[in-house]
């Protein structure tokens, strides 16, 4: 327990001296009360206010996990776990810490802890890794192929793309999250994108080839046991 508390916040994570530059990020201006202010209230004991943060972040977090794990149930469990950890470690939230990256730090750790205990083969649920391909519109089909290509990426690359493309974290924030240089993040994003493109193109050409249906492996119904 104590170990995972350390693991949550790497040393030097957003020390209060370097905040504020991006702490009052522009994407927060549309919200009635900044996440940071709400979180401070939660820290001071108004745990009911966590409901506000839950409303704001359940969908982004759920999508982060759904795209990482491909498993709806695990994703919901992990969202729950994140809010449990926020409650439990709310005292460690510091004034001036941008909330969003802090939240995703917890989210990453929760996922890592979860899959450390899990056998690796359960990481991808094929049911969700392959979304239904019934869409007739070409556009939708492309998107679903792209989704599959994304699920084929190794976890770190997938995570990187999800964090910057879907969760809109800044490169600096991701760098801090991963504990590396901003330049490294950019390089890795570019590589991940290239790999995604290759996966996607392969899927696309496999898909357009006739007679390559996925249901080919069906077993004849009788007497297969010997």
């Amino acid at each position: 327990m104590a170990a995972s508390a350390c693991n949550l916040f790497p040393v030097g994570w957003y020390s209060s001296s370097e905040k504020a530059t991006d702490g009052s990020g522009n994407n927060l201006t549309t919200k009635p009360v900044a996440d940071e202010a709400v979180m401070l209230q939660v820290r001071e004991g108004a745990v009911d206010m966590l409901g506000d943060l839950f409303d704001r972040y359940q969908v982004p977090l759920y999508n982060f996990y759904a795209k990482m794990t491909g498993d709806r149930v695990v994703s919901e469990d992990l969202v729950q776990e994140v809010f449990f950890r926020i409650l439990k470690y709310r005292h460690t939230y510091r004034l001036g810490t941008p909330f969003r990256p802090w939240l995703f730090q917890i989210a990453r750790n929760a996922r890592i802890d979860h899959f450390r205990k899990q056998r690796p083969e359960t990481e991808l649920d094929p049911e969700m890794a392959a979304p239904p391909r019934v869409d007739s519109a070409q556009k939708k089909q492309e998107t679903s192929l792209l989704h599959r290509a994304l699920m084929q990426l190794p976890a770190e690359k997938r995570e990187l793309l999800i964090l910057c493309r879907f969760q809109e974290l800044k490169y600096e924030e991701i760098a801090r999250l991963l504990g590396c240089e901003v330049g490294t993040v950019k390089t890795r994003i570019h590589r991940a994108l290239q790999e995604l493109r290759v996966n996607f193109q392969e899927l696309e050409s496999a898909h357009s080839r006739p007679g390559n249906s996925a249901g080919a492996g069906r077993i004849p119904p009788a007497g297969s046991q010997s």
Partner: protein
Amino acid sequence: MKCERIAELLPDYLRGNLNHEQDDQIEQHLEACAQCRADVAVWQELAHVPVEQPSPQLRARFEAMLHAYQEGQSEKGNVVAERPAGWNWWSGMHWLRPAVGFAVALVLFVAGYFAGSERRSDDSRAQEIAAVQSELTNMRQLLVLSMLQQQSASERLQGITWSAQVQADPQVLSALLRALRYDSSVGVRLAALDALSRHGNQPQVRAGLVKTLDAQQSPLVQVALIDLLVDWRDTSAVQKLQMVEQDPNQNPAVRQRAQLAIEKLNRGKL
């Protein structure tokens, strides 16, 4: 400009972090280079990957957790809140999670109530006892639900054991079904199956068990599941059992067990 040079700038280009001049340079390159163009196209296409919605239960579970936590806090008083750094003694007693702490407090309260209420009139006493008991039931359910969410398998196991003392509440049943299907520990899954075996009269449970049959990863759990379905004479399971029996990816022992089960269930039908 070459691809390598573009590679340095592309991530910033994608986020619109570059100045006009640099943007122009990149766009010139993109016109000439099909691969980089495809990279950018994929990036843009990512925006169309749909946002998925969690189930409405997620909010309910969150509220249950928050509630249990608040109750736990108020029962414990402010001692813990006062000392953020002094977690050590607390984390050592890992079983004494807030929810558990609260339940223990509630049990003590009920015990105290019984002890102290000797002299009251029987009538009002019975009413109050009923009220306290129903509250206790609710708290137990919350407790079970929150324990099934714990990180450690032994705590989840404990949650399953507790669930036996709770009435067959649909929320608890679905938490047990979820444990049976998705828990990472075979022990927890077996315990969940055992707990569910007491609720064979619930259609939700039966349907859930049948559904999880071929999704199970552990042959041990599968065999136990098949045996339970035979015990219940659940003929609706035959179709799924046949699928398992014919699936070459399944464990041979499981397939054999499924075959036997189908024979037994079919015999029962006649």
